[in-house]
């Protein structure tokens, strides 16, 4: 553990000269070297694969493309300077900590080991790709305003759906862990950093690269598989699937590393007195999510590597006629895929349970139960994956088992609901913007969860499988759940992160528009699904036309509501710049006892934790921490 006695002035916090910043390792070099790397790798690959049947007959040299993408990743990492430190160590230089901790705008464009900078980089990146994927959703809904394929040439619709789904899931997997996890976990546990600061930065830059690599599918003929990459379609598909494979693999690596970093941080860097039962519930959400990420993401990576081999060196993992099985992909993918959907749920639980006590002014109800619930969800999420394969010809004797485990998982999930409701019980609620989002989370997730029961039931899944019912279900859990929670989290913590207040009125406009149009968009789609509208098809039965036009119009309004958020964000942070108080919500949690924005070194002295942070409503509740002789902010928050 870092010693509390290192004084701030001894730490190297530098502002390098402008020239050394432009010429040093940064994202400009990364872009240049990754493009150069692609060219080099492609050339090498085309030499290696020369005269192979695929290369001469198919005009699609996957060896070259995949080598190109691989070298692009290397170039990206070299350009950002990720090899400097390992090479220096190999050359015998001494170990250092956080060598890139500095001031100035340039630190946002390079490898930075300040966890707060990485978190902000993450936030901007995730929001950017979220915008791209959201734009794709608007295009999807535009096409679906007509019962026939009209707007978009038929061959591009599938790629569009694949880009939307894959991008959303890739970015949202990192959407809370990346920005909020990296920013808040060290502050909440009383640490000055994450356990592995360079790896932390690596995960963020790999996520950015993954986003662009996925978009490169548009230059390589697109991909027809949606986000699930099913075999043997993935084995036969156009070269765009290579982009899907590499980008998802990058996210897999990034997620696993984020998980390791998060778990190591919470295990080793807690301040004195931060016992496990004083850990904020948000941190528990991050820990359980990380456990899933560490265990599930490598399986995805392995499966993707198998597809790469099938496509390049003519193995036959997924090819029946040569002894493989496409079913193997289904198993491996969903063994990752189901935990993945809880990677998209647990962070939301963490955020809302953290927000509720602050605005209910009551302690979190059933803290230990909530932790148990999160672990229950995490553990059980590895035992249900075959519910995605009920209709795919699995051994029918296995169906009742997976139906049972799936329905069982609603018990720990239900516990989280009880924690929420128990906290709200008889509370005098302050309906701030973050609180509204947190409350909406429960409403939406309830509908998502209840519709999930129909999908886990084998007999009703026969009807709903592969339809818009599924589509509506997972948008209720992911968008209605995670994205609403994330929005709540952003409104809640952004004053701390940026030091500026977001506009409350615009926030409320955003919330109500998003909440109403979200439900108007996705609720009717349950009906569309029950009436037989299939997923991933650009045309549908003419009888469903009116319903779809209605859905599309409200989807556009939903899109506009996100613009309100964007305008609020840009205007409040860049133009209005109204200084936020250190603790505007009167929270007791540790991060709010620091000034806004948080200084580079976080804590002048590592505090000693004296209580859990949920002592609301009792005036005699103990202070959460002892900050030593120099209390930094602390106005009002500690009482």
């Amino acid at each position, binding site marked *: 553990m870092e010693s509390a006695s290192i004084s701030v002035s001894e730490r190297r916090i530098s502002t390098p000269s402008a020239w050394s910043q432009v010429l040093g390792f940064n994202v400009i070099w990364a872009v240049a070297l990754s493009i150069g790397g692609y060219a080099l790798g492609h050339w090498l690959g085309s030499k290696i694969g020369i005269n192979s049947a*695929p290369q001469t007959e198919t005009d*699609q040299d996957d060896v070259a493309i995949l080598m190109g993408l691989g070298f692009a990743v290397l170039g990206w990492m070299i350009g950002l300077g990720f090899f400097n430190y390992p090479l220096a160590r190999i050359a015998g230089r001494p170990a250092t900590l956080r060598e890139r901790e500095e001031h100035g705008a340039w630190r946002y464009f390079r490898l930075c080991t300040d966890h707060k900078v990485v978190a902000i980089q993450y936030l901007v990146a995730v929001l950017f790709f979220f915008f791209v994927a959201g734009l794709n959703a608007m295009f999807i809904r535009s096409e679906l305003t007509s019962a026939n394929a009209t707007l978009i040439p038929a061959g*591009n619709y599938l790629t*569009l759906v694949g880009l939307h789904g894959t991008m959303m899931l890739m970015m949202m997997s990192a959407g809370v862990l990346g920005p909020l996890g990296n920013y808040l976990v060290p502050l909440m546990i009383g640490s000055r950093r994450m356990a592995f600061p360079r790896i932390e930065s690596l995960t963020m830059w790999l996520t950015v690269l993954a986003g662009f690599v996925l978009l490169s599918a548009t230059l390589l*003929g697109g991909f027809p598989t949606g986000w699930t990459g099913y075999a043997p379609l993935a084995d036969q*598909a*156009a070269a765009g699937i290579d982009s899907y494979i590499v980008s998802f693999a990058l996210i897999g690596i990034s997620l696993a590393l984020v998980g390791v970093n998060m778990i190591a941080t919470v295990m080793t860097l807690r301040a004195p007195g931060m016992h496990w039962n004083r850990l904020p519930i948000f941190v528990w959400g991050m820990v359980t999510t990380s456990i899933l990420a560490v265990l599930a993401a490598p399986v995805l990576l392995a499966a993707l590597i198998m597809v790469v081999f099938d496509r390049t060196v003519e193995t036959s993992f997924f090819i029946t006629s040569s002894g493989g099985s496409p079913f193997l992909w289904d198993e491996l993918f969903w063994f990752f895929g189901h935990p993945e959907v809880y990677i998209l749920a647990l962070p939301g639980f963490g955020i809302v349970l953290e927000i509720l006590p602050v605005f209910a002014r009551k302690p979190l109800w059933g803290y230990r139960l909530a932790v148990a619930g999160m672990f229950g969800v995490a553990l059980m999420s590895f035992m249900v994956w075959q519910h995605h394969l009920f209709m795919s010809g699995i051994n029918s004797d296995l169906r009742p088992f997976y139906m049972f485990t799936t329905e069982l998982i609603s018990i720990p999930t239900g516990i989280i609901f009880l924690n929420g409701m128990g906290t709200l019980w008889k509370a005098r609620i302050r309906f701030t913007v973050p609180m509204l989002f947190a409350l909406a989370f429960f409403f939406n997730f309830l509908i998502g969860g209840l519709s999930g029961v129909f999908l886990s039931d084998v007999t009703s899944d026969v009807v709903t499988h592969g339809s818009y019912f599924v589509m509506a279900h997972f948008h209720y859990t992911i968008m209605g759940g995670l994205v609403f929670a994330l929005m709540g989290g952003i409104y809640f913590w952004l004053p701390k992160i940026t030091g500026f207040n977001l506009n409350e009125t615009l926030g409320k406009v955003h919330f109500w528009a998003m909440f109403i149009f979200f439900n108007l968009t996705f609720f009717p789609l349950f009906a569309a699904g029950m009436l037989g509208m299939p997923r991933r098809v650009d045309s549908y039965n003419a009888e469903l036309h009116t319903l779809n036009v209605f859905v599309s119009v409200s989807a556009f309004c939903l899109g506009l509501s996100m613009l309100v958020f964007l305008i609020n964000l840009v205007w409040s942070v860049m133009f209005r710049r109204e200084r936020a108080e250190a603790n505007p919500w009167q929270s007791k949690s540790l991060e709010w006892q620091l000034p806004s924005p948080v200084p580079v070194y976080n804590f002048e002295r590592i505090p000693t934790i004296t209580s859990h942070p949920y002592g609301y409503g009792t005036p005699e509740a103990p202070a959460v921490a002892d900050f030593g002789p120099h209390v930094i902010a602390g106005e009002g928050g500690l009482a």
Partner: protein
Amino acid sequence: MRALAVAATFGVLVALVVVYFIFFLESGPAAIAATRGSDGSADLTLQTVPSYGHHPFPDWVSYMAKDPQGKWEHTTIFKVPAHTLIKVTIYQYDGDSGLRNAFLSGVSGTTGDIETINGTVEHGINANDAAHTFTIPDIDVNVPLPGINPNAKNPCGTAPCSLAEAHNTITFSFRSPGPGSYRWQCFVPCAAGFLFGNGGPMQTIGYMSGLIEVS
């Protein structure tokens, strides 16, 4: 001032993303209209080529279509009027690769359930001789196209092929349905080099599949 610059850069970036996506989504082969026949019918003249010969996929097998000016275009999207007799002529320049499902070697959905091959009326062909099919599943049209003689001296090189090169001429007609967009495709797994012959051109509109847009 700096904030304004950042916001403006941001706005430009967003606009670029939007434009790029519209550009990408709208890319694809253009539709061509059938020509009006003298008897009120609509005529489609197509050819199948063993390899397209041009960027981006010179080795891919492909369909081509003749536009009303008589020029060969690389597209598989055809506009035809509703409830009309459509007369189709296909010049088939490719060798056989055989049907996996022999059922598709029989003609269906055409006028009289027949096709003519080099002038001879047929109800179907030997499944192993099939080079491609022209199939519109929604209206049950299925026409198998036999491959050229493997020993022919002058096989076609690159598209568009000319009538001087080895080919089979297939004709048939069918009635177009009501307005709508109907998918058509080839059912012979003819994508050489791809897994099961089903990748690449078989999955790509403009090569072995397309749309009949009826209005």
